[in-house]
């Protein structure tokens, strides 16, 4: 298939582009298979590229003398393209509409994008590295090949870490008992040996099925005396109702060593409604002074942030203070479950607050363990009405929680907020293949990893990563307990209201301070050299 068959008007000479984050541009607009490109006619050779994939909705407003196409993007930006001819405008709009919703994975931009300089493999999410870390704490684990060729669980990677005393056969049984085959699997091992595990709901159903192997599998991580907690991120009522659909939740009778906690976290579709309202408020520059805060509140987004943080704190405390292991699941085990497991690690593990550690965490928790990015990020806030229940900013909510932590502990993170923003934008539209597909199986079949460039490689490359470093980073070895009081939670300005973000000025200044420090140090080195040379000369003269 050729892209050209969709492109009726490849180039318009007179076009005008406006956007909230760019300066107005006059020039010629070009349409390619993946981009709308505007070349400025003025002397400065400016260009602006908009990825079709990033376009969420298109508004057409055709007048007599000019035609406006408003491109509403998934990263919440809007652009307004003005051309003179109505025919051109219609063609462009139609082309973008078709090209932005191409489903075929092989036609996605990442498969065409070639990084300008060859990037080295980031090697994030490596199971060997992970296993090495765990071996330092506990010798109860082994690497298993039971999921080779994704035979028991398509949303888990092929090689996994399982308890030593559990045979592959038992794991197979357990995976049959769990929804989508997502059996309880290790997520994080705390330094005291307690673990966080994640899974999906047990398929108890109406006839109260139980699975000895599943019980054995999770009991074995507790050891002999310990108790554990099972956190279900649904209300008890919903969890029990799920039995009629073949799901359910663990009964305390069958899992006597475990205590149940129900902490209700919203499903992706609820988050979707919330973020739509939030973006509406935050992009509304003309909002009445008196209404703004209550409108923000009624979007409920910060409430979701708080709930997720609360749940993560709870789990962190179970691990750190109570010394108990925790098993977390929701219905499918790849939405709110992953939010909690990853935030818990950020709270507890200083390693996850480094740049590499954080990217590793995202790769490990979200990419490898099957958060369905393709479904969740297919549409964004502007395509209201079209969204199905599969869409929802689960991952974005996680990033917002990290932002809250970062805001509360500005010294404890090696990276700064712009990294989170960058990642957030790349989940919706990107030249990198990292967030393509729903799970490892899909990536495997489409050969995403070999054919596309990884965002991590880009972010970790030598000329990119320094710009994301937090200049006031002070590594600290302990936990960071976030405050979930409403007074402590902030709207994520850099993402939601990028046109005004005071912290950006501060950050820029800090960064330049850092640069300045480097500069001074090198000057000092040079001067010290000179001094010592001079001294040598003097010595020679004397002798």
């Amino acid at each position, binding site marked *: 298939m050729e892209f050209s068959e969709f492109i009726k008007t490849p180039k318009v000479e007179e076009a005008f582009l406006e956007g909230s984050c760019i300066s107005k541009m006059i020039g010629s607009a070009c349409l390619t298979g993946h981009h709308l490109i505007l070349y400025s006619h003025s002397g400065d050779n400016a260009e602006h590229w908009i990825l079709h994939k990033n376009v969420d909705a298109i508004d057409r407003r055709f007048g007599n003398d000019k035609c406006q196409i408003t491109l509403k993007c998934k990263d919440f930006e809007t652009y307004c393209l003005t051309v003179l001819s109505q025919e051109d405008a219609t063609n462009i709009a139609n082309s973008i509409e078709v090209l932005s919703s191409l489903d075929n994975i092989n036609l996605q931009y990442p498969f065409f994008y070639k990084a300008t300089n060859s990037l080295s493999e980031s090697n994030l999410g490596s199971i060997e590295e992970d296993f090495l870390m765990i071996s330092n704490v506990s010798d109860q684990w082994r690497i298993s090949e039971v999921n080779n060729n994704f035979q028991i669980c398509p949303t888990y990677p092929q090689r996994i870490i399982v308890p030593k005393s559990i045979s592959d056969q038992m794991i197979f049984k357990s995976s049959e008992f769990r929804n989508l085959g997502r059996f309880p699997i290790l997520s994080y091992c705390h330094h005291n040996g307690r673990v966080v595990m994640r899974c999906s709901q047990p398929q108890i159903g109406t006839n109260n099925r139980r699975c000895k192997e599943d019980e054995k599998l999770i009991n074995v991580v507790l050891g002999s005396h310990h108790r554990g907690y099972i956190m279900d991120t649904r209300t008890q009522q919903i969890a029990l109702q799920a039995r009629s659909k073949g799901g359910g939740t663990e009964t305390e009778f069958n899992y006597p060593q475990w205590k149940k906690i129900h902490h209700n976290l919203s499903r992706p579709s609820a988050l979707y409604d919330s973020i739509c309202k939030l973006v509406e408020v935050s992009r509304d520059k003309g909002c009445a002074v008196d209404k703004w805060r209550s409108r923000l509140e009624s979007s409920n987004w910060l409430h979701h942030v708080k709930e997720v943080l*609360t749940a993560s704190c709870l789990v962190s405390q179970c691990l750190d203070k109570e010394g108990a292991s925790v098993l977390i699941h929701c219905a499918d085990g790849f939405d709110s479950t992953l939010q909690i497991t990853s935030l818990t690690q950020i709270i507890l593990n200083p390693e996850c607050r480094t740049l590499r550690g954080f990217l590793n965490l995202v790769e490990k928790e979200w990419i490898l363990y099957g958060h369905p990015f393709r479904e969740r990020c297919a549409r964004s806030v502007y395509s209201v009405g079209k969204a199905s229940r599969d869409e929802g900013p689960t991952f974005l909510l996680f990033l917002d929680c990290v932002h809250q932590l970062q805001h509360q502990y500005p010294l404890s993170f090696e990276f700064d907020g712009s990294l989170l923003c960058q990642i957030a934008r790349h989940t919706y539209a990107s030249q990198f293949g990292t967030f393509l597909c729903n799970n490892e199986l899909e990536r495997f079949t489409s050969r995403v990893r070999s054919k596309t460039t990884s965002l991590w490689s880009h972010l970790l490359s030598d000329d990119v990563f320094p710009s994301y470093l937090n200049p006031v980073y002070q590594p600290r070895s302990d936990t960071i307990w976030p405050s979930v009081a409403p007074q402590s939670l902030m709207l994520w300005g850099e993402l939601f209201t990028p046109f005004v973000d*005071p912290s950006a000025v501060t950050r820029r200044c800090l960064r330049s301070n850092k640069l300045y420090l480097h500069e001074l140090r090198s000057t000092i080195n040079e001067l010290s050299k000179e001094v010592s040379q001079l001294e040598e000369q003097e010595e020679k003269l004397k002798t």
Partner: protein
Amino acid sequence: MYSQKLAEKDIKLAGAYEHVYQLSPSSEVDGLLLPGEITVGHAKEVISYVLHDENRRGTSGLLVCTNFRLMFVTDKPPYCNLIAVDNKLIGPQDVTLSNIETIYIEKQNGKRKKLYPTSRNIKDGIQKLEIHCKDFRILTYSFKLSVLGEGKNIVRAILHHSYPQDSSLSFAMEYISKKASKETSTKEASNISSKVVSLYRKVDDWEKLIMTSQAMKGRWRITSINETFSLSATMPGLFVVPSSLSDAFLKDAIHQYNNNRLPIWCYTHPNKCSLLRSSNFREESVQFQVDQKIRQEITKCDPSGRKIRMMDLNKMCPTLQQVQMSFHKLKTSCMPANEDEYMESDGKWYSTLQTIKWLQFVSCCLEVARTCVDHIDSGLGTVLLIETLGVDWTACISCLVQVLIDPTKRTIDGLSELIQREWIIGCHPFTTRLGILHQPKKSSKFQPESSTSDHPEVCKSPIFMVFLDCLYQILTQESTKVEYTSFFLTSLADGTRLPVFDTFIFNNERERNRTLQQLNQQRTTDIETISIWDWDVQYPHHVQQLFINPLYRCKRFHHLVATTTPPLGGNSIATNDDVTSPNTLDLTTTPKVEKLKSSKKSSTHHRSASDSTCLDTTTSSMTSSSTPHGHKRINSNSYEVPYQPPQGRSVFYCAGDERPDSGRSVANSRSSSTDNMAAEDDEAVVIGLVDQVNSRAPQVAERLRFVPNSANNNNDVIGCRDDDDVMQVKTGVQYLRFWKFAYLRWVSFSQLIGGGESPQVEQENKMADEIVQLASKIEHLEAQLCNGDTSVTSPPPRVDDVTVQFVSSYFPYLAISNKSANKSTLGRVYNFSRKKEGKSTTSASAPSPKIHHHHHHTEGKPPHRPAPLSPAQVAASSHHMVALSEQQQTSEGGTYNRLSSGV
């Protein structure tokens, strides 16, 4: 950087208190008293509870009431909620009587009663004393261990002394008269910094102000018609008026205005537009020509004859009552009785904030100020601020306008002088507005008939707090452009409740003058008052360092960064308002696009001419007669550069990350606009700025003394000049931040250990220190190279390696020291052990424990549990997670509060 001092202080404090406590109370407290301070009551064996801890933990000690403060003295180190700020005047556990807002007592039968200044009938058997402070602190004391009657006595004493009715009874009078005789020798030494801040009571200060401005020369003059305050109580003794108005005319005109306030000059921009403030013209006056004439003359002060714009602040700003109401609500929501109450505000916090309206008022003030700034800066004409009394919003707005428009007012000294001139000399009825004096019903000073507190003349209304909040908003938005910090602002707010200084204890200058005259008549020697700007009286040197914004401090050196070094990372952006998201660059990674240029270049050309004018004024007004290092003075003909209003939005260059080419373009345009302003001119700019900081308190000067040699061969020093722009402050309510540091600083459970703004400032300070250190090292080495003199010793290396991990987000207020950084007691929302306690007490409905005053848990030990638990309770508490899920089952909606506060 200062947290190590904390630890030391801890020990010192402990020592001091031990010494005191071993002796019997009352007379031996004298060692801790200030000059002029006398004990008026005390109670022994009083328990002081930890803030917001539901009275579970406390320390026993001696509670002393003096004519200045309520003092809590104990031999045990205060283990919790330690106030790090090392105030020479009040201890960490003390509270000044002026700070006391309301007093509650609790009887043995549990009845809680609010006491009024007029309350007489105080009986024995007071169990608990709860004091709500004006700075939102809550102090709770219990007398259950004291001798019967002591509680009553001290409460009576507090009540009697807490609500003074006359400024002349203020402690400041006692203090200064005693202090003057006691410490004449030390006074001189400590007086250095106060001399830096002009108090505007002498004609020199005013002359310095108007003579240095070229735009004012010959058009404005200083008049002394009100020197004895006989014409007007609220007008300053000296003020600036158009030169063409005669004294005789003014004397006549003054009574045609409300509150006897003429329009007085506040500020003149280099483009010759001015800012003035005044009260309303009297409605009943028939001499309209007076008002007209004055306006005409003001118009004539502007050579271009632009029309005056009248800003009626009565219509544009909220009323005094509205502000008072709003502040009251703010106070209520920021003084939760316990953690649960704090957490309950959850979910409705934003709408609460909205109904409080405080931020809306702040936004409104900033908006009015911005309107004025736009008007003046774009050269549309002079602005005259008008208000009924002319002492409230006019002061606030005029200050804000000047801060936004004039970079010299953004330094600590500049701001201090501004506040002194507009608020103190220009008059703001501090005692009335802040409720420092108790205004009994008679309030004869004002209108005898009206007893309603709604009348603007006797209305309580914290306009000054609105002003400080506005300054805070400016700080958050433009943190690199202002020298002050949040701590400076809260110190000012606290200073209003510290009756040691003459700054905030009078309603106007006449009152001050008369009080001092009376005082001087009684005594033989002349009394010298102390102003708040004399920070040495209050804070030791290292605390004063916290006033200085590190980002502002190290910006001074940014021109040192060689422009050849590209900014870190490929895609940082040159201009401030060019917010091209990095993403657009990233998504389109082709070499061509990476070069995306700032399209704002054209507007920089417009800006530069006006920049140089502003800057030159700054330079010469700040440059003292001698210029160090032998650089040329800037030539004064640069004033003749015609002012060009900036077109469109001005472009700022953020220090350090500008690109070589954009910076150069400014330099080029500068040299094209004026031939003689080339590289040497840029040097002069640097000198000017250094001088400016040299004139500051000596310690700062010391830090910034270094004049970079490398700047000589570096034409691009324009990195400094984002300072010299008019600040574009966002006024929308969405952009304003809640000033947690001021309003929530005593709410211990809202603090974060190692998080929040304060540790970041600490870290920035470290970086700034390092920059200063390295810069001086370079200078030193270069000097060595030039002179070939190797005998010069190098500067001492820094000894400073303190982790900021344990600094509270409210540092230096609710700071905990390294020692007591006990994670199980502070700084978190989740606390398993706390839940157990709470649960045990509630489930057993146990009465409040009897013995807790003994339990000062020491380092390492877990916090004490108030009551021994029964085995059943222990079992219950260890299974509290179960209980939790049960709770969730029962009430799905309300679980969070319990959960977040407890678990």
